[in-house]
């Protein structure tokens, strides 16, 4: 199957200035996203997982140019988004939607739900005027809200209900790509299941593409085709779902997977703990950014930055950024400090 490249991110960097001193000069930068590249093909779901603060949301916002990227190119549907004017960009917005991580902050508190949705449709003229109200109700119902809630204001909803408003808004304009930033994290499992099913159905019907940002690996496993693992502004591993979940190569990915709680109180769990503090993205560690916490870290890791590449033991679309993938795989390298923690 000839896959069509829908979104191509190339060398994306997003630095936030840190103002310091009484005079407010820029003293440093938060390197929230530091040179990442990946491609998403039409009709697939790619997830980004990673530790909190590693730059997932920032990546999403940069793709949409909600924050102008510091560096790098974003190409969508053969248009280089980073190079066009704001006005031009507006035309592409219909195809690129985002569900924000913080649902309450991202909706205008003075609009009722129906106004929020109808306005989205008005902006993108996605439905004829007369049908908009009907469509609004439909959308609400698809995300598990009721018609009677249509004329309520955001503050009258619960956290999960607000998140569903955000989802409905993104869906209302029939986009091609949706960036779902923790889109289902506040939903109870039943609604979550409904929404995830909905997203899958839509994908099937309209060949939608998702960039799914989540830390809920259960959800990620369920929905993704491919997974990107980020650590401190960098991609450390990327691959199809099965490779990542069943054959993780990067020590960070491994640690991540071991930390997932399982909904079974009888099961004893073993977490691979990560040593030490999470480094700051302001002055990230030299070499491999993970070396400060990596149980396998060697001198090389402290000096040389590993490239994202496919190692022999990996599938073809599977890449990891670690110098010692093979050694670890072969058991030649033993973790330095391994302790199991009973929870």
């Amino acid at each position: 199957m000839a896959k069509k490249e829908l979104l191509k991110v190339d060398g994306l960097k997003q630095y936030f200035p840190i103002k310091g001193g009484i005079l407010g000069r820029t003293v440093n930068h938060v390197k929230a996203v530091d040179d990442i590249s990946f491609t998403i093909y039409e009709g697939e779901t790619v997830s980004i997982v990673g530790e909190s603060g590693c730059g997932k949301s920032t990546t999403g916002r940069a793709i949409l140019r909600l924050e102008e990227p510091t560096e790098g190119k974003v190409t969508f549907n053969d248009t280089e988004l980073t190079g066009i004017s704001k006005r031009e960009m507006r035309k592409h917005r219909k195809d690129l939607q985002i569900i924000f991580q913080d649902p309450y902050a991202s909706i205008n508190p003075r609009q009722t739900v129906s106004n929020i949705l109808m306005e989205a449709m008005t902006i993108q003229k996605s439905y004829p005027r007369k049908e908009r109200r009907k469509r609004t109700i439909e959308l609400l119902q698809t995300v598990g809200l009721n018609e009677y809630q249509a004329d309520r204001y955001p503050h009258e909803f619960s956290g999960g209900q607000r998140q569903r408003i955000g989802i409905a808004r993104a869906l209302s304009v029939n986009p091609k790509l949706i960036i779902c930033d923790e889109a289902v994290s506040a939903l109870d499992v039943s609604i979550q299941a409904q929404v995830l099913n909905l997203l899958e159905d839509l994908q099937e019907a309209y060949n939608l593409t998702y960039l799914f940002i989540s830390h809920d690996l259960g959800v990620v496993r369920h929905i993704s085709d491919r997974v990107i693992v980020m650590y401190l502004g960098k991609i450390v591993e990327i691959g199809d779902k099965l490779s990542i979940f069943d054959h993780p190569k990067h020590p960070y990915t491994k640690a991540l997977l071991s930390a997932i709680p399982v909904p079974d109180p009888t099961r004893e769990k073993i977490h691979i703990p990560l040593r030490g503090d999470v480094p700051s993205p302001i002055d990230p560690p030299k070499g491999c950014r993970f070396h400060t916490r990596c149980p396998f870290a060697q001198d090389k890791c402290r000096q040389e930055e590993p490239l994202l590449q496919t190692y022999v033991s990996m599938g073809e679309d599977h890449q990891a950024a670690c110098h010692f993938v093979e050694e670890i795989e072969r058991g030649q390298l033993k973790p330095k400090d391994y302790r199991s923690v009973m929870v």
Partner: protein
Amino acid sequence: MSEKVVGTINQPKRSSPKFDQLKTTWKRLRKNKAAVVGGFFILLFIFVSIVGPELTTQDPNKVNIINKLQVPSAEHWFGTDNYGRDIFTRIIHGMELTLRVGFLSVTIGGVIGVILGIVSGYYGGKIDTIIMRVMDVLLAFPGILLALAIVSVLGGSLNNVIIAVAVFSIPAFARIVRGSTLSVRKLEYIDAMKALGASDFRIIFKHILPNVMSPIIVQATLRIATAVLTASGLSFLGLGAQPPTPEWGAMLSEGRAFMTEHPHVILFPGMMIVIVVLAFNIFGDGLRDALDPKMNRR
């Protein structure tokens, strides 16, 4: 849902879905006691200014020196002024004009100021710099000089005083709106609208404006008082109501010479201005509440 589902305890019948934000606001406005009272008075004022003059029995400009400076009585409810004119009649006849000056000048100045301020705050950068520096110039500029210039170019009519007062009010609106816009434009829901591809126009007027509305309402309702007083202050330039027009601000300044000995001359027009401004303020408060979905409904 199953049809056996029946309404239970206190089941209010819901009105048909409201499609329009305006309608919602209107509905909430009607529920707000303050707004209703304020609105009622405003309507009353408008009514009086239209039909009031027909109903009065006395001539507002009838000079009767012998009768001057009478205290309020059954015949002259508010007393008479220094020409023996009936103050009550004058107040009724002056209402239309006073409201016109107060309301129109604030509206014109407000609209222009709000647009400038919101554009300035939203876009920032050069646009902000230019607009705000022009506002600085306007603020620093002596009002009289501006008014004099307006008279000399446009002549001294009542409409021109409205223009003059409107021009004076622009910078205050602009600065207030800009200040609030600066903080609102950074909120995430504005980003969300951008992500939806909303035009700047829409973002500005549908999303920022309602969220900076309350300082605007305050400023506008208060400005009415200032406008009436400013307008009367300009009458000596030939701008505004000329004697014997019973415009309230003018009545206040004319009464100035007599205020110590005959306070009623200035008391009544002063009170009327307060009442009108009060009505607008109460209404404004109600409007603010109605626009704020979080406000406790009562």
